């Protein structure tokens, strides 16, 4: 397993490609002051969860675009029926995840769209900025700030998020936080990455699918599954 921290986007893309070639899971994470993210690319991951047997019997089926249930077993423990469900999650590399839209359940609900932190937009804008100007971070020059703001607005529209969530004070805060490290944030994210890594290695519990955004100001850490939309395979044609 590879855990790549604080890498530039271009480097992360290359590392991701190398990991896929070697068929190794990858976690990419970074902190910028009070903000941070964790990206997971576990390629094709099977894991097991243990839970009490629910009233509605669990079936072997495809749960979402990425997750499917493969096997179900039951055992009796302490007089309760525990079921052991084996699930499978499919992942996308970061080069695809970066241009992917939000999952459909977010796009159809305006309330959910309002809750998506602008951090996602800012991160994408930052990566675009790095590849355009080959500078590590935007400097305080007017031109840089203007470029960054334009990129951010563009990415925000691309994600189909309402314009009012991309506030100028957030942009300012994000830019001010770039390049710095704050202990509680790194502690939290470091713990999350390690926890997920340990779970993945032990093949237990649901791993992060696939992008965790951490906003230290709001103390929120939502997870979004950013995957490209593939047209459904038409099996009737042969």
């Amino acid at each position, binding site marked *: 397993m590879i855990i790549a921290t604080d890498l530039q986007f271009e480097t992360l893309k290359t590392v991701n490609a190398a990991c896929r070639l070697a068929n190794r899971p990858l976690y990419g994470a970074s902190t910028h002051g009070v903000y941070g993210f964790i990206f997971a690319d576990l390629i094709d991951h099977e894991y097991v969860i243990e839970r009490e047997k629910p009233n509605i019997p669990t079936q072997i089926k495809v749960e979402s675009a990425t997750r499917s249930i493969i096997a179900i077993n039951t055992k009796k423990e302490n007089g309760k029926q525990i079921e052991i469900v*084996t699930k499978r999650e499919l992942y996308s590399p970061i080069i695809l995840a970066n241009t992917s839209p939000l999952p459909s359940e977010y796009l159809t609900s305006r309330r959910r769209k309002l809750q998506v932190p602008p951090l996602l937009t800012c991160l994408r804008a930052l990566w675009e900025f790095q590849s355009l100007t080959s500078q590590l971070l935007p400097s305080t020059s007017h031109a840089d700030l203007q470029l960054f703001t334009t990129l951010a607005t563009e990415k925000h529209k691309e994600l189909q998020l309402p314009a009012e969530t991309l506030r100028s004070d957030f942009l300012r805060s994000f830019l001010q936080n770039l390049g710095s490290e704050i202990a509680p944030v790194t502690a939290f994210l470091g713990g999350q990455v390690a926890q997920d890594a340990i779970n993945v290695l032990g093949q237990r519990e649901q791993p992060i699918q696939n992008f965790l955004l951490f906003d230290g100001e709001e103390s929120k850490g939502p997870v979004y599954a950013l995957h490209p939309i593939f047209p459904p395979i038409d099996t009737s044609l042969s």
Partner: protein
Amino acid sequence: MKHLCRNSHRWLKPSVLVWSTTRRPQECFADKEPDEIALYDRQIRLWGVKAQERQVAAPDRSSSIHLADSPQRLRTASVLVITMRALANEVVKNLVLAGIGSVTILDDHLVTEDDLGSQFLISDQHIGTNVRKLLTVAPKPISLNLMIARLGDLTTGQGFKPRNFPSS
């Protein structure tokens, strides 16, 4: 190793340092005082160091993933951590505390004073040295997990026998 301490140009060759669980649990806890053992109590329970093994329930072979194997899988796993900064310090700390098989650290940067404020695995005597060199001497990871020892430096091949490298 003197050339590694130059600050004037970045030493571009990546430094790869490997920390691995090499010591067997019995030998590192055998000579410890009772209060030291109490300090590592949680780890001992986690890794099943005690002489009498827990009664492991018959594994459920109908599923292809066996739940009982999880700690064993962790002990044989190897993780590569790229770029050693505050976040990586935390990640390495947590992995080492959980009893991971081996951690390989890849970072070619020289330690600066700023790093002292964010990384706890280094101290001020290490300013100006290559990250890998200081981790060579740092006792910190060992204090977290008695079973690990520094295997060596992959770049120079110092103290490192390639055949030991886990293939997982």
